[in-house]
């Protein structure tokens, strides 16, 4: 490990916290020093297009706020007191105890404390999420593992038209709510009930009964894969990893795979695909003059997490007809996880396959890009002119330096607010085209 410049994620505690915060009627009980919850939540909510706080997150997050005395004498008693009082004060149906660095290092036996409440039938779960264990993506895996093993009802009969959608880490995917809702809508058109869990409109009962699903779809090659494996082991639901489908090409391929797997009527599938495509092209076609006359094809530089970097690259290659030049994946990954990302990028036809780098630091991404550019002699300027950068707010200076177009789609995004926007599916692809091209005409 080495230091990281302006990390594009929070710690494990942060990932667990935002996951719980995104689940309706679930509340976190943070067992840590006073600033941990506010710090993680603040970073996630501001960076996620001003997600903001609902009712039991932000500064309303129940937290033990342990200080030196508990660090010396242990914080178990304080945790027990806080769980009991939270059950009294907060009106929720799932209480998730998550821990920070301090309590993990001093070795509080939080599982023993929580099990006392579980024995009384209280809906309390626990995950050890000390920040030093990793980033928000890992923390989200920890809390999903806890939910799957401690909260879900075991032994439910399977419903072969029901799936659970995983692989979304709130805030790390700034558009997780909109994306989930659109995926649910699309799958619903095929007669598949999709549980999304992380939108304001989800019912906690669907989470409790998630074991009924015939299939878990993990929209990531990395995030959410481990808990999906635990899910399979515990509740017998298999899982597939799917790239986030952005735009008509990727979405059609995704829906065809899912339909085949769940044995959906092919006629119904074709009907839905035709209608959704008609929507996309109904709006896209009239833009053809602008797009072609102004030559809006670009060399693409894509910067983001595992899920978005591949999905956006596929979209600009397959649907927008751009040339992906360099892709920087900013997540902290194990060798094995990297290999799965590399394998995924190898699915892109060689002529359009970009240079793929794994880099956490904004400044290093620029250096690596410049090295790449320097290796291609171009006596008249930049080999990637005209260029376009699709990344996060941190990557705006890079775009300015390249005199490139810029659009922010990955965390952090602080220059616009995000509500129900989404980029998945046919309509999400249309939205992305709209946003990307709008940036090119913004000064007119």
């Amino acid at each position, binding site marked *: 490990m080495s*230091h990281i410049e302006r990390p594009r994620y929070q710690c494990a505690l942060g990932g667990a916290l935002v996951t719980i915060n995104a689940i309706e009627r679930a509340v976190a009980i943070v067992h840590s020093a006073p600033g941990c919850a506010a710090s993680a939540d603040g970073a996630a909510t501001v960076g996620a297009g001003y997600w903001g706080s609902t*009712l039991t997150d932000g*500064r309303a997050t129940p937290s033990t706020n342990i200080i030196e005395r*508990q660090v010396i004498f242990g914080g178990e008693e304080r945790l027990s007191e806080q769980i009991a009082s939270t059950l009294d004060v907060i009106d929720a149906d799932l209480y998730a105890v998550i821990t920070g660095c301090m309590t993990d290092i001093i070795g509080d036996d939080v599982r023993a404390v929580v099990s006392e409440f579980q024995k009384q039938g209280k809906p309390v779960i626990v995950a050890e999420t000390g920040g030093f264990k990793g980033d928000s993506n890992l923390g989200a895996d920890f809390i999903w593992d806890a939910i799957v093993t401690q909260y879900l009802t075991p032994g439910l009969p399977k419903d072969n038209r029901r799936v659970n959608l995983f692989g979304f880490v709130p805030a790390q995917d700034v558009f997780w709510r909109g994306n989930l809702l659109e995926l649910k809508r699309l799958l619903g058109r095929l007669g598949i009930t999709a549980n999304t869990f992380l939108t304001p409109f989800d019912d906690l009962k669907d989470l409790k009964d998630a074991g009924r699903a015939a299939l878990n779809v993990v929209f990531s090659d990395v995030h959410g894969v481990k808990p999906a494996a635990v899910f399979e082991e515990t509740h017998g639901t298999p899982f597939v990893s799917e790239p986030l489908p952005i735009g008509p090409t990727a979405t059609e391929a995704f829906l065809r795979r899912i339909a085949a797997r769940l044995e959906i009527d092919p006629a119904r599938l074709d009907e839905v695909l035709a209608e959704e495509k008609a929507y996309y092209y109904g709006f896209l076609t009239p833009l053809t003059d602008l797009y072609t006359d102004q030559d809006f094809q670009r060399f693409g530089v894509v910067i983001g997490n595992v899920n978005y970097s591949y999905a956006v690259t596929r979209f600009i290659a397959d649907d927008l007809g751009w040339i992906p030049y360099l892709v920087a994946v900013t997540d902290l990954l194990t060798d094995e996880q990297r290999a799965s990302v590399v394998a995924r990028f190898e699915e892109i036809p060689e002529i359009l396959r970009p240079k793929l780098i794994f880099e956490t630091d904004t400044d290093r991404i620029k250096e690596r890009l410049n090295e790449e550019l320097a290796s291609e002699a171009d006596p008249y300027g930049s080999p990637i002119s005209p260029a376009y950068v699709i990344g996060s707010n941190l990557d705006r200076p890079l775009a300015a330096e390249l005199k490139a177009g810029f659009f922010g789609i990955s965390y952090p995004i602080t220059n616009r607010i995000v509500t129900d926007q989404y980029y998945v599916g046919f309509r999400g692809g249309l939205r992305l085209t709209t946003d990307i091209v709008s940036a090119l005409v913004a000064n007119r």
Partner: protein
Amino acid sequence: MGLKHDKVVPGREDRVAACMAHGGCASGMGKQDKICLKNNERTFSQAGLCQLLPTLGMLLTLPDTAVIVHGAIGCGSTGFGMNTAIRLHHVLRGNPNAKDSLWFTTNLDESDVVHGGEQRLEETILTVAEKYRPQSIIVLQTCTPSIIGDDLVGVIEKVRPLIDIPLLYSHCEGFKTKVWATGYDVAFYAIVHGFIEKDKEGPPPKKGPRQPGERPVVNVINLASMGKPDEIEIERLLNEIGIDVVIGPNFANRETVRRMTQADLTVSVCPTHDDYLVDYLHTEYGIPFVLKDMPIGLANTRNWLLDIARHFGLEKKAEELIEREESKARQAVQRFLPALKGIKVFISAGEFRAVVTGGLFQELGMEIVGLRSYHHDEFGTEFYEQLVRAQQGKDFPVDIANFQPFELINLLQKVKPDLFCGHVYDNGWAAKLGYPTITIFRIFDHYVGYRGFYEVAKKAARNLRNPSFQKRLGENVGSAYRPEWYQQSPFAYIKTDASPAAAA
């Protein structure tokens, strides 16, 4: 001890007996046993801040500085919100090309927790110095390296000779104090030690006495939360009575910070924020100080200006200015007064800001019906009494709480104000209950001095004129708390040494 000799900045619960948990009434403030107050705890608590966050918020304002947060990854991930505010501050300060703040995490992981993080820290400092070429580097020590025993000062002193820019550091582990305002002290400590005490040129010599005819210079200690418009108002008022100002240390570079040692007087705009630094400048440089008021509201501004003017025999000039300005401001707010008369206001912010803003509202004919202070210390005490007196003895509840929105929401439902005026992240709770809100500070707006008096009146009248955003929210947002909670005292979960919390 003090800023110069403290090895580690003491928590404010020890240094000024600051209290974080208390519920009572305004007339009773200052009458309780301070030690009891300071020991109060909550048996149910919600997320607070830790001292790292205000420290980071202040130190990220220093231009062209790289901040290294030594710890696990999360402590270094929180800069984005601060970054946007700080960038806008710089834009307001006339730098449209302001760069993003730069910060790093040493990213301590499980293996580092076992083996120690000193080497990582050393490598990080050297890499950042060489590669990013900042004007200064600041290292913040968080909980994890502190617990595992990393020797921060050892690493700092080892690398200091190897780099040619000021190296600042501070211990700001969140678990060391429950009073996050300690973070202000920690930031001052880092700034003073980095730019003055341990600077390569050493501390500047003390300035000689002022020459006859030389205009006096005063330090105005600014706040990261105070916008440029307020600094301009302060500068304008002091300049008009013949005083020059140096504003710092937020947003200041090394040279400006060093110039602060050469002033004739140090002036605070928020005593509870600044006393640690003010004391240093007094002890080490013999610079007298005014640490009493905040220039918000007419009476407070008057007192603040006169206290400063008195130091230089400029009272007469100050009186003339005050008469002129007050008359203009009073005239200007006339048109808002009918809308504000008798409006019941609830205020929530850092203690000092809250009480002086209360004074301003009273001058506009409004009544305080409740107040929440983030902590309580002696600087605020006398103001509560003044506020009660100013509204003919009408007392009001006071909640001393490091946020704790569950107490606030309970209290608001009991006192039902006409208007809520709160700090960032407070207004939302009131708005979701349907109460009209105005924000107690915003870096683009005026709050201080005469212009501030006018602008706050205007802002309040504007929000009261159409509070439909909040009203509709109130009709459509549910409650996170059990109905029983609203039947209890808002202070039911505060445990004092004498009486354990009723609900515990």
